[in-house]
């Protein structure tokens, strides 16, 4: 999942690259798009609303990310879950449960389970960088999406890549490489999930999609909406944030 | 009126070369006959007997027994016809070894669907009539050859067929037993009016037949009516 992340290789550099690349280079676009969402570091306040036919609930959270593979998320509201925290370092993932004051390591067998009951899986958090390294990319034309001219980029897993998807289709804005939409296809070719990026607004010096919506196709009526209330890019984040001690910290 | 009427009967065996086993034979056999087909080996007498009994099919010609033309019958009907109207006596291996003498005698009436009690009673009667009452519960292999052939004769006449066909019935018997068998058949012919047709090259049989039909190379060479004593029949 591209949860509250960013970093950018810099708008100027991006612009320069775009001018130079007259025929679109799919790998380069994928890399730039990935970087446009993540940045070097990122610190955000996010709310996550999970909707199902039976219930709807919203979690508030604070998140820290450091390129390439460290992430820390802490739930701040509601009271029942407040203090619940997730730490990811590389392929490892831990949850802290304040109700029982325990840290739980998430085993690989549960990577496809929903994260905090949302339509994002644990795997979506951990396999963050795989769009660039685990897939081969092809630009299959340009389409208009939400009023923006977008590349239609098809990402196919490399033969040995540890990827659960059969294929990804991304719509990436030509002007600044921000993704507008991602479609996740299963190994049998069925569309499984759709992630859309909306409300692109200024975040610091850069445009950023402030509203992400993950819709489950398999489970109609299930969707998860992330709304970024505040986001800050490329400020150094101390290493102590990404530690198990920090998981248990009472805040 | 004749019982068996044979017209232009021809039977050809073709193995390597075609042999006319029966060559355009026409004959009539009267009811109550005691007739012998005689001739050397290969003259066609057994073939003719088989054709008359419906065991073999002619290539040309017709055989009528009573008022049925057996040459036109399908196999199943022919089996039924034999069962109802023809009795057989063979040279040897006549009786079913697993059945007792009485059971052997009951075989044909059983096929005809006669009640068990009837056929058993009749078998005992006839067995007694040929002086074999005491062997009824024995198996054929416990009997002498002569006894076996007499049982075979009884089996052939038990259901009162129109004609009894006997293929060399005395061939495996010594003279005394052959004579006894002929005595029996003559008696049945005389007392019960059973029609007999033999194939034979036994002089004893030829001597006692009242009609002697000589075959050679599939043709009728001679056909003489004689008196029972061996004298030529009255014209």
């Amino acid at each position, binding site marked *: 999942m591209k949860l509250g992340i960013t970093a950018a290789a810099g708008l100027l550099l991006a612009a320069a690259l775009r001018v130079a690349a007259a025929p679109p280079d799919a790998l380069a676009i994928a890399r730039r798009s990935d970087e446009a969402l993540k940045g070097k570091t990122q610190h955000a306040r996010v709310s996550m609303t*999970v909707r199902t036919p039976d219930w709807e609930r919203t979690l508030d959270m604070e998140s820290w990310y450091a390129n390439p593979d460290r992430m820390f998320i802490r739930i701040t509201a509601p009271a029942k879950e407040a203090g619940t925290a997730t730490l990811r370092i590389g392929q490892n993932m831990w949850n802290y*449960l304040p*109700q029982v004051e*325990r840290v739980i390591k998430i085993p690989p067998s549960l990577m496809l389970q929903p994260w905090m*009951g949302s339509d994002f899986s644990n795997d979506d958090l951990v396999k963050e960088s795989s769009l660039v390294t685990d897939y081969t990319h092809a630009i299959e034309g340009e389409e208009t999406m939400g009023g923006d001219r977008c590349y239609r980029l098809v990402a196919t897993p490399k033969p040995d890549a540890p990827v659960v998807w059969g294929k990804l289709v991304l719509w990436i804005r030509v002007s600044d490489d921000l993704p507008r939409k991602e479609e996740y296809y299963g190994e049998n070719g069925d569309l499984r999930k759709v992630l859309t990026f909306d409300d692109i607004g200024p975040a610091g010096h850069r445009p950023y999609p402030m509203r992400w919506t993950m819709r489950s196709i398999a489970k109609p009526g299930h969707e998860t909406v992330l709304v970024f209330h505040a986001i800050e890019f490329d400020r150094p984040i101390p290493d102590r944030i990404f530690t198990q001690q920090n998981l248990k910290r009472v805040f | 009126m004749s019982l068996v009427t044979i017209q232009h009967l021809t039977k050809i065996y073709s193995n390597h070369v075609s042999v006319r086993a029966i060559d355009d034979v026409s004959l009539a056999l009267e009811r109550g006959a005691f007739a012998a087909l005689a001739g050397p080996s290969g003259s066609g007498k057994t073939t003719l007997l088989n054709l008359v009994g419906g*065991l073999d099919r002619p290539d040309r010609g017709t055989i009528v027994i009573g008022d049925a033309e057996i040459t036109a019958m399908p*196999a*199943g009907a022919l089996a039924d016809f034999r069962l109802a109207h023809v009795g057989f006596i063979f040279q040897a291996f*006549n009786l079913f070894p697993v059945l007792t003498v009485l059971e052997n005698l*009951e075989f044909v009436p059983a096929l005809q669907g006669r009640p068990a009690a009837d056929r058993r009673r009749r078998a005992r009667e006839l067995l007694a009539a040929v002086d074999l009452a005491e062997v009824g519960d024995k198996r054929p292999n416990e009997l002498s050859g002569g006894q076996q052939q007499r049982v075979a004769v009884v089996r052939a006449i038990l259901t009162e067929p129109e004609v009894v066909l006997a293929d060399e019935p005395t061939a495996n018997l010594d003279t005394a037993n052959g004579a006894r068998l002929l005595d029996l058949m003559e008696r049945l012919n005389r007392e019960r009016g059973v029609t007999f047709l033999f194939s034979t090259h036994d002089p004893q049989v030829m001597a006692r037949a009242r009609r002697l039909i000589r075959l050679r190379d599939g043709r009728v060479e001679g056909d003489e009516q004689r008196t029972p004593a061996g004298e030529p029949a009255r014209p």
Partner: protein
Amino acid sequence: MLFLTMAWRNVWRNRRRSALTVSVIALSLTFNILMRGIGDGFHEQMVDNSVRANIGHLQVHRKGYHDDPGLNRTLPDPARVARAIRALPALRGYSLRVLGDGLASTDENSAGIAIVGIDPAQERTVTTISHAVTEGTYLGDDAPRPVLIGERLAATLKARLGDKIVLLVQAADGSMGAQLFHVSGIFRSGAPDLDRGVAYIRRQDAQDLFALGDRVTEAVVLLDASAAVPAAQAALRAALPVEGAGACEVLSWNQVEPFLEQFIVLDDAFFYIIVAILFIVISIGILNTILMSVFERVREFGVMMALGTRPRQVVRLVVLEAAVLAAVGIAVGGTLGSLLTIYFAENGIDLSSFAAGAASIGITTTMVYSRLTVANVVLSNLAVFLLVVLVALYPAVHAARLRPVDAIRHV
């Protein structure tokens, strides 16, 4: 009757050959009945193990739960369901359960598991899990929030009696529920799925953990015998709403666990393939015997036909002889097979050498007890009889097609 006499005596003309044929028929039948009996016993044991270990004979859920289980589909009106169940004539016991997925964790490790909330006394009337406790007690101690786990899960979590484990779930309202439990007992059922992936807790604790209030997800019913399943299923369907809001589904063990029945079907198919091969082999032997006996008696068949026996009657005689062989073989083999099957039904067969494979398909004991059914005996006998008669048809037709004129002269 005369034909039967002939057939019977013909059979014993060559005693040695016929005795051999009868032995082959008898032994194949013995094998057939015994193997079928072992299969029947084995399958029933498997079903019984499964039924008694976990799934019961019948399960009642909210309609649609089985296809897509979830805490949003709790059992409508459990009191009414319980009343309907108690009215069943063949009832042995029932249990209202809360079933949900979760994560079990210790400081050492975590594992995804199924969490089953039970009333220990009620569950005891349905499943054998209470007998499978090897350490500690069956949710019986006074500690708050006891949990009973399988020994393989205990090994995975490196949890011992008295240790704390965290159960983390997504509750019915979407919130994350987490609770600390104390390992009060460890069980070994022999069924890998249970030993590796199930934690039993008290029903009330499960309802708290899953934020279910007083709702449950399923009612599990145990009957006197699996034969009572269809009637009980129909009775519950009649007593409970099956359409509209609050509709229930009433599923039998084989609907809950179709794998079990599929395995049995597959196992049966395998058995029938072996039987088919066996039958082909013995057919060749029997065909040979009957053909020989026909060839030896060509002259006899010639005489029979000359005397007016119809071809159909010749067929009947030869088939009758085969039937006599079959009947004797069946009398011997049927008795022997039945006795052996009864013996192994009493004493069992130790299949411990196959136990490794057996455990993976839910077999919890290495002793298999065969089971003699009327269907087995009747069908096996019938199959062997028909086979022999069918095989005899070829020599019979061969005999019937002999031309009497050639047959009589046959040496």
